[in-house]
């Protein structure tokens, strides 16, 4: 086993990796940029190495600086976390070429699985279902109808060239097919100078279901069951759960085997995730492979009782997987809510700021993986995730109740968050019924705003605090008084009020 590792990341994931390293007696090295001098991951590490300016390109994405930091501190391995360099094949190769262990798959395997077209081919070779689709000449009526009969309606027609939604049309009946194909082709021709169209089966209200896999260096591959991550805003997950509410043992066995076959055939090593779409008829289709630890890995830890980071470190140091597939069982139900600095009333626009006060939820079945603390100013340069809240209980409903309770215990003052939004989502009947799909939030919670219920309580609190201040702060214990921070309400002097109003005014000039 390694005696020291470097964590090439920041925020909650860096802190989470360090926790396991400490439990295993492994030394930890953090890297940090200008914006992160006082970040929690720096405070949590045994050693910390400054790697440059706040711009991630000059620090967290600079492979050479990170490898140098590992060499200088004599770390033996690099854990990339998620994001940043975690899926960068050159970084994995460079790490190995410098005599260090990259905690993840080999660079060439990562490169192949990271290429979506290549990964789709690999999946097909391994017998894993992919969404049926092909490039068709719009004039080839016979092939168009043939495809639709095989794949079944509805189908999606889009431009074969380019990306985005150009020419995209959903066809639900055969008599709509030819005109849709013609129109899509014309739009494609206009936009890309190429009228070729791509036709694929259209999945209605699909669920995002992914399988966690583990592969050691000795040919052993297992899966750790599934997670459902359908609750997404701006195509990014915010609430995940394990297991999937509509899973049954037979489908789990088939999806698990598909994922294991794919990563085994690809020569994959370490922890990875195979993502699928699951349609309403319980057909599953390969989406992509994430060649790293996922943000939502704690819910798998909750239902399996395993520590995925510990297993990653053991696999990377050459150990065999300590269990076989038949040894693995899942127990209970778990949810994760991602706490981002964002404003759910303004299309989830980032809402960074200085965290003035925070309080974490506690109690049975509650886990908080946080990357921030009160007094920390959340940098604007990085992903706005502040923390992840995970709850687990004996069944899905109990885990939902526990999550709502924990969300309501969580206090973050100074940055906007989606705590209340997520509590409303979890508490909705549709969610409780498990009727989740990737369009769930757009369908059920468009234009969400916080309810006015409870506004009176907040106003009473505001007035009560004013009354206390009018009495003078002798009402507070001296040791509770801050020495270096302005008093909460007293700090609202005219100058700052003016700035506040200036800030409000500026919103008019802000689009997007």
């Amino acid at each position, binding site marked *: 086993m390694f005696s020291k590792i470097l964590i090439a990341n920041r925020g909650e994931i860096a802190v989470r990796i360090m926790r396991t390293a400490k439990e295993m007696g492994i030394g930890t090295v953090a890297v940090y940029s200008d914006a992160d001098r006082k970040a929690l991951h720096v405070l949590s590490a045994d050693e910390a190495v400054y790697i440059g300016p706040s711009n991630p390109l000059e620090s967290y994405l600079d492979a050479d600086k990170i490898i140098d930091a590992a060499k200088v501190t004599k770390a033996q391995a690099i854990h990339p976390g998620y994001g940043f360099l975690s899926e960068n094949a050159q970084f994995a190769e460079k790490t190995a070429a410098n005599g260090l262990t990259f905690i993840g798959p080999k660079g060439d395997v990562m490169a192949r699985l990271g290429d979506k077209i290549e990964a789709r081919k690999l999946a097909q070779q391994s017998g894993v279902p992919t969404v049926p689709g092909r490039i068709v000449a719009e004039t080839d009526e016979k092939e168009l109808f043939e495809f639709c009969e095989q794949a079944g309606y509805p189908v999606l027609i889009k431009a074969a060239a380019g990306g985005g939604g150009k020419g995209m049309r959903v066809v639900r009946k055969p008599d709509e097919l030819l005109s849709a194909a013609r129109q899509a082709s014309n739009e494609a021709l206009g936009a890309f100078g190429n009228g070729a169209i791509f036709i694929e089966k259209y999945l209605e209200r699909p669920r995002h279901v992914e399988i966690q896999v583990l592969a050691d260096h000795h040919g052993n591959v297992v899966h750790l069951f599934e997670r459902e991550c359908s609750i997404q805003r701006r195509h990014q997950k915010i609430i995940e759960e394990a297991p999937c509410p509509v899973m049954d043992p037979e489908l789990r066995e088939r999806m698990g085997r598909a994922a294991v076959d794919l990563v085994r055939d690809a020569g994959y090593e370490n922890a990875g995730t195979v993502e699928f779409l699951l349609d309403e008829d319980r057909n599953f289709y390969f989406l992509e492979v994430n060649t790293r630890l996922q943000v939502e890995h704690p819910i798998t830890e909750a239902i399996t009782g395993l520590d995925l980071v510990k297993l990653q470190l053991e696999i990377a140091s050459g150990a065999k997987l300590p269990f076989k597939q038949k040894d693995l069982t899942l127990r209970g139900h778990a949810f994760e809510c991602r706490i981002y600095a964002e404003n759910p009333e303004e299309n989830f626009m980032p809402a960074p700021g200085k965290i003035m006060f925070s309080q974490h939820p506690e109690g049975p079945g509650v886990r908080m993986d946080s990357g921030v603390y009160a007094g920390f100013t959340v940098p604007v*340069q990085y992903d706005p995730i502040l923390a992840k809240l995970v709850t687990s209980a004996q069944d899905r409903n109990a885990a939902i109740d526990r999550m709502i309770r924990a969300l309501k215990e969580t206090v973050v*003052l100074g940055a906007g968050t989606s705590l209340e939004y997520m509590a409303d989502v979890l508490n909705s009947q549709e969610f409780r019924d498990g009727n989740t799909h990737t369009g769930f939030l757009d369908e059920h919670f468009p234009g969400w705003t916080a309810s006015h219920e409870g506004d009176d309580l907040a106003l009473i609190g505001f007035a009560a605090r004013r009354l206390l201040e009018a009495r003078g702060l002798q009402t507070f214990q001296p040791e509770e008084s801050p020495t270096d921070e302005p008093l*909460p309400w007293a700090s609202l002097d005219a100058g700052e009020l003016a700035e506040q109003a*200036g800030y409000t005014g500026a919103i008019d000039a802000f689009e997007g």
Partner: protein
Amino acid sequence: MHLKVKIAENETRIHTGDLDDSMATWMTLGDRRYHVRITPISHHRMNLEIDGRNHAFSVAANRDGSWVWVDGRTRLVRPAGDVAALVEASTTMRRGPRGVSAPTPATVVQILVSKGDLVEKGQEMAVVSAMKMESTLTAPAAGRVAAIHCNVGDVVSAGDMMIEIAGPEDETLDDPDNA
């Protein structure tokens, strides 16, 4: 104590009595009357018994306003009415020329105008990136770009004036024919 405040755009008048020896008083919010007993706990925490029911509060203030957390909800309470108008007036004086200011802390990605350019209301002026999400800032009014106070790559704070726009009235003052 009389207060006029708002949560989002909802204004409320608050009227309170004085605290008695047991730290209790009455409050009216609009036409709703409450009995409130306060237990101060720390700088950011207090407990209130409101009409006999217990509620834990967390509080903090910054230039956005006063943040109040209670029963799992966080609300931003801001001054309203006369106070707000006063603040608005002092702001206009402080800010001087109009322009584009940063809506949130952000990194400047692109500046789409140059000093001296004539711009229309709504014209795209700059692109900023906050936490990997890009936003385009537009001109709040027509006019001429009088000054650019930031460079690509700069980190700006919420409210920072980035691009100043001189409106037609400012131009008139500069016009020698009009002097």
